[in-house]
């Protein structure tokens, strides 16, 4: 396992690197910039760093206005506050107006585990992917965060990206990021697991254990929730006949739903969605929450094994 990296610092440094060359990029903070990896950027570029205090609705609208005059605003804060709270601003001021603004929800999922449900974000994929034209990203490791930042800043239009908080390892060699494309991380023909965000680390571990049990699992990493990669899903459904989705999100509305929408329309096969049931999640240490909701390798192994057995019976 590689060295663990802070996703927020990785993100902030990646934005700063692109912003060195692209002077249109400005960073907006709702008392959130320092914790979003922008301490250095704020010190280096005070003229391109705007502090607004705790007003996520206002900042989202302000970002829209700045985009109309050619700026590329990046606004990062705690995930529920830049998705749920300011949703109408994202929908109207960014989506409907087609503005070139990047909204980043950090500490996404339930990585703010013990702070409770107010600080969890388990519906962000569901609501953000409903905005026409909006891109929804959830990179899986530090290298992919770096590459996704470059892709998101090069993309002309509204983007929502979710990153977490706990340090994460590099899972695969860094390579250019293409919005809307998943990639096969492990070949296999018995069943496909499609995963997003940091869940992919647990999925890869589970796949290894499944392989030892004789189940040859394909793993697809899906860092773009919207637009979803239709081709890779159709191919997997056709070739492996069964799909499991894994995400740190409600089982409803997120990656699993996006995959199921494709599967039911083009290539009906059984789909099992692994995620959090639609409840206000329990609180406690992050790893224990993952375990509680069956989102660690052990839980994924169990659910996939049961699903595979059921399909055979």
């Amino acid at each position: 396992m590689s060295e663990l990296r802070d996703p927020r610092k990785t993100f902030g440094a990646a934005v700063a690197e692109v912003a060195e060359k692209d002077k249109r990029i400005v960073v907006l903070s709702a008392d959130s910039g320092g914790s979003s990896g922008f301490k250095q950027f704020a010190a280096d570029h005070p003229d391109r760093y705007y502090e607004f205090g705790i007003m996520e609705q206002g900042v989202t609208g302000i970002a829209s206005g700045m985009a109309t005059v050619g700026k590329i605003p990046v606004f990062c804060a705690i995930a529920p506050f830049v998705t749920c709270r300011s949703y109408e601003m994202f929908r109207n001021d960014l989506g409907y107006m087609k503005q070139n603004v990047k909204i980043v929800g950090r500490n996404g999922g339930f990585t703010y585990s013990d702070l409770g449900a107010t600080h969890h974000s388990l519906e962000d994929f569901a609501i953000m992917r409903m905005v026409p034209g909006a891109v929804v990203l959830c990179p899986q490791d530090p290298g992919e965060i770096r590459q996704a930042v470059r892709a998101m800043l090069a993309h002309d239009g509204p983007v929502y990206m979710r990153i977490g908080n706990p340090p994460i390892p590099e899972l695969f060699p860094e390579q250019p990021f293409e919005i809307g494309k998943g990639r096969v991380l492990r070949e296999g023909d018995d069943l496909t697991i499609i995963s997003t965000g940091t869940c992919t680390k647990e999925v890869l571990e589970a796949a290894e254990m499944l392989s030892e049990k004789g189940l040859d699992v394909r793993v697809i990493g899906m860092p773009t929730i919207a637009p979803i990669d239709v081709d890779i899903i159709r191919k997997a459904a056709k070739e492996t006949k069964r799909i499991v989705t894994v995400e740190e999100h409600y089982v409803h509305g997120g990656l699993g739903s996006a995959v199921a929408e494709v599967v039911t329309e083009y290539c009906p096969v059984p789909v099992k969605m692994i995620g959090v049931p639609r409840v206000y999640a329990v609180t406690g240490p992050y790893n224990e929450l993952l375990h509680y909701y069956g989102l660690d390798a052990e839980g994924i192994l169990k659910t996939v094994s049961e699903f595979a057995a059921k399909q055979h019976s």
Partner: protein
Amino acid sequence: MDRLKQKELELIAGRCRRNVLRMIEAGHHGHMGGALSCIDIVTYLYFRGMKIDPRNPEWEERDRFLLSAGHKCMAQYAVLAEKGYFAKEVLDTYGSLHSYIPGHPDMHKLAGIEANTGALGHGLSIATGMALGLKDSGKNARVYVVMGDGELAEGSNWEAAAAAAHHHADNLIVFVDFNGLQISGRVQDVMNMTPISEKFRAFGWNVQDIDGNNMREIEAALKMTVSDNHNKPSAIIAHTVKAKGISFAENKAQYHFWTPKQGELEAAVREIEDNIQRLEKEVQKLCQN
């Protein structure tokens, strides 16, 4: 402002009011009350106040105009048509399928529209971002906003009000179309946001109270926002009359959204056209003198 200029602007505003009625004729309904209370301000801005070029609506140096209270869009459509942004025949498509002039403005459909407003409480934030972006890009352009008074109950406005003052957006000028009425009744009864002036002043804005249906007062107030802005954004609390110009509808909340009853539209057209004729004569007379 001399009397001729004043009457000329009043005449243009009269023609714009007629354009509003033309849209109602086409669409059979619309947010008339607020459109007619703010239309003198919108007319002044496009015909005298703003740095714009109707032949080049995307001109980077232009002043920007946002209707935060997007439901008053018939006022803006009426003025844009009068100013030559689009052919007046487009007014006849109001309410029809795929119209360029929907019931709330859409920047991707019509040149001259700067933001997709309609959901209240969004415009001031967008305008603040525009104003800061323009300033920091070294552009000498201003951003003008017309807000509703009922709209002030939306909390997001006050986030923007704080941000604009904190970041010294002195190129931001807000008109509050204070006609005192919203859809359910008097603003003070529905949710009392008065005193409005003191609220903006407390947030760090320059504030003036004017008669918002008076061209001279609009001009004088705007001059102050340039000469005496103390590096602050400016709020002009424009005391206006809802449905101004249609006497049977003036100051009545039920004309916020108007589906004309039998005879109403004809009576309104008669009154507005009579007023246009009167102003034409006045202007002609002043020109001869």
